[in-house]
């Protein structure tokens, strides 16, 4: 399998590059930790908030919004950091599908690690009882997977259109809103410890969105990279 080998090599290259500098990972981790800390400080301004009714809802929604902005920041870099000549070199040695696949897989790995760490930090600052911790964990993994697939494709488009952050937000938010709505509902179910079978429909919808986005990305990226 030529495509598989190319994808694997490019993926290894992404990981090695990141391992040497640790720029994206540390940067986004610091971003997440400082955001959580700001939220923590702001919420302690209101004493007794932890015991109010809305605390659990706010807890869940806030977590996903932090993850959303962290992933925009982390993944927007994936095509930005490549210089034009280096991209040209990749295209001469690998197929475009391999490039987008390796970037997506790398971003999935990065985002899963980041969101797990973010969840730990978040749980440290904001104590909350989760009814079904394993399922919540799975939802977080699924969320980072969905964010990665959507944002990788959008960042490829945005990087071709002048590399600005505004465009990235405008293009990606309509696509990401349904994803994040489903994720918030799923994780609320997990937090309340509802029966898992009540969430299968939502998981199916999320997987369907991912499959559609991945399929269109694989089909369209070969047209996108050519200048």
């Amino acid at each position: 399998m030529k495509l598989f080998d190319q994808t694997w090599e490019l993926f290894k290259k992404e990981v090695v590059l990141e391992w040497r500098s640790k720029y994206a990972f540390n940067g986004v981790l610091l971003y997440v930790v400082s955001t959580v800390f700001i939220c923590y400080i702001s919420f302690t301004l209101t004493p007794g908030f932890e015991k109010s009714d809305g605390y659990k809802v706010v807890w869940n929604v806030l977590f996903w919004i932090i993850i959303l902005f962290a992933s925009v920041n982390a993944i927007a870099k994936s095509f930005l950091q490549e210089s034009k000549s280096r991209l040209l070199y990749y295209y001469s040695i690998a197929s475009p599908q391999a490039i987008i696949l390796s970037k997506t897989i790398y971003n999935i790995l990065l985002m899963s690690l980041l969101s797990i760490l973010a969840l730990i930090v978040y749980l440290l600052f904001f104590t909350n009882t989760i009814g079904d911790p394993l399922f919540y964990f799975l939802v977080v993994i699924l969320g980072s997977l969905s964010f990665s697939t959507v944002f990788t494709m959008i960042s490829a488009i945005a990087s071709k259109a002048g590399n600005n952050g505004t465009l990235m937000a405008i293009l990606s938010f309509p696509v990401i809103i349904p994803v994040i709505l489903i994720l918030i509902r799923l994780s609320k179910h997990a937090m309340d410890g509802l029966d898992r079978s009540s969430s299968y429909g939502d998981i199916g919808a999320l997987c369907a969105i991912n499959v559609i986005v991945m399929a269109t990305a694989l089909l369209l990226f070969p047209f996108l990279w050519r200048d």
Partner: protein
Amino acid sequence: MKFIYQTWWKVLAVLLVLSTLITGLILPVPRLPILHETIRNLYFHVPMWMGMLSVFTISVYFSIKYLKTGKEEYDLAAVECVNTGLAFFTLGLLTGMLWAKYAWGEFWSGDPKQNSAAIAFLLYCAYLVLRNSIDEEQKRAKISAIYNIFAFPVMIVLIFVLPRLTDSLHPGSGGNPAFGRYDLDNGMKVAFYPAMLGWSFIAIWIATLRYRIRLIENKRNNIN
């Protein structure tokens, strides 16, 4: 592309829409609780979405053709289809809001169907913003074609799939049956199906007119 210069389907479109104006307002409708006479809005609300869907589909077709051939006129056709589609999108939202005021009590009640339609509207506005952000014509055509193809399945999921999975007041979602199941009796079909076809043709007609204007403008601006 000979089709867009022919007359017969434009005449047909006008006749069909005119006929639904008469049949839709005169023919008897089933007496349903809450809906009462507002059910006649079905002949105007649903065809708007049908018109939007047809021009958006055509626009995706031309985007694919653009990516294959790189001819500028395909890009113009795609963008004018999206422009027309957005106009029909707005009309669909407005007729829906008007209906919602009488059936659900509020113009905008935050129903999942309304919300995801609004998000899909943003999706296509993003397409227009993306076009404006790139100056180079060929690059603009290529990237916006790619985004257009990408946006279409997402729009379908947003408007037609996701609201069905949640609790929505809109017919056809969350266990609510769609109108077709048993409310739409044969008397209503006489007005409903011609309206769907007629408004789709009207949408395509508007798109072709805009496309022809763009072609002329393009020819004028060319340096020979």
